[in-house]
């Protein structure tokens, strides 16, 4: 019995102090950590793929008018699953390593995007944003003539 107690005491003393200094010193999570989302408005196509796959339904996509698509991310209910990042074709939505998300203002936990779109020539509804057009120009495509680079 005494031997058991000595063994236990030995395990404890051998370990020493293991607690981290956090929050008095920063602590970075592992790479690939699924933290708070960050949205890059310049890359966003407004496709709404993220909204469709989000299990918690925190992303709302709607058209304000013929030129403007609104994307609202109410990420206070985000479950940090990372499906939005997986699905986004442009890499516009990313999971950052940030995990210190406590705040006293609910507005801090919302991201609102306005994406300017082009209207479809036929039906007049929001079609696609200038971003792919820019990309095509950068890649050397000539728009409007049918020629390929």
């Amino acid at each position: 019995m005494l031997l058991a107690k000595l063994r236990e005491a030995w395990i404890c003393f051998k370990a020493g102090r293991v607690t981290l200094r956090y929050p008095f010193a920063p602590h970075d999570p592992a790479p690939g950590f699924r933290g708070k989302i960050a949205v890059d408005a310049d890359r966003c196509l407004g496709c709404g793929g993220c909204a469709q796959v989000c299990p918690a339904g925190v992303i709302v996509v709607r058209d304000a008018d013929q030129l403007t698509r609104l994307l609202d991310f109410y990420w206070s209910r985000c479950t940090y699953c990372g499906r939005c990042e997986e699905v986004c074709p442009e890499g516009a939505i990313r999971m950052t390593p940030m995990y210190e998300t406590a705040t006293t203002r609910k507005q801090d936990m919302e991201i609102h995007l306005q994406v300017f779109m082009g209207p479809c020539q036929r039906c007049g509804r929001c079609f696609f944003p200038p971003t792919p057009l820019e990309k095509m120009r950068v890649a050397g495509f000539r728009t409007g003539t049918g020629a390929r680079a």
Partner: protein
Amino acid sequence: MSGLEILGRLAVNVGLALLLAPLFEGVLRKLRALVHSRQGPPLTQPYLDLLKLLGKEDLWGARGAMAAIAPAMALGSALALAALVPMGGTPPLGGTGDVIVIIYVASLSAVFLMLAAFGSGSPYAFVGGSREMMLLLSVEPVMVVALIVAALKSGTLITGDIVGWYAARGPAISMVVAGVAFFLALQAQSGKLPFDIPEADQELMGGPLVEFSGPRLAMLRWALWVKQMVFAFLLVELFAPWPRLGLYPVDLALGLVKTLLVLVVVAVVDVVNPRLRVEQAMGYYLRIAFSAMAALAFAAVGM
């Protein structure tokens, strides 16, 4: 001793008990944290806890009048015990029947804790109070036997004289056995594992303390810390009074150091043990009480 000396020693005894007990508790907490592989609170944390509690609201529910004054009485009786215990010299309050008085005053603090529990109006406190009673009934005999042995061997009931006699004489088998028994009883008296049964928060939500808050809770906690320090001091003064140099301040300091050492051992035992059930604890202490009778036997034959 002159009246002034008595007052002075009284102030020292009560003051030390009141003011140093939280520091000793702080040391024990830090030791606990060390064994737990964590940083632990600063040594002054118990003082900060008391300060915090003293400033909080005193909420009460179905508490009775007895439970309302019990915390103060518990602290008071612990301090009264401090006045009876020799610290570095003769105790300030003493007379011809010291040992008997100590036996009674020693259980007073626990009795007030029980009264606080039974008057709380909570079923958890009730069970906690009854466990405190059962534990007290099993630990008392051990303490009594140890003190009787000391009185028997030294031939006097006056604690100051017992200390002086033992310091001069050197160790004796019966006294050593009695000292060991008293030390084992100390574990339960300090409310430390494996015997912190009454205050088992995992089973009883804090037991007797569950209905107290603010200043009253502070007094109950303080009473427990004073109790553990004073009992340890009694142990070292009666059963391990060496070295004794005859100089009051030096003997006092030595006594404090020895008390701290004893409490450290108590804390180490505390941290490597789970909690026992109350009937297991009672069985354990009854066995100790019977073994402590051996000390009486030794004393009777003069050893």
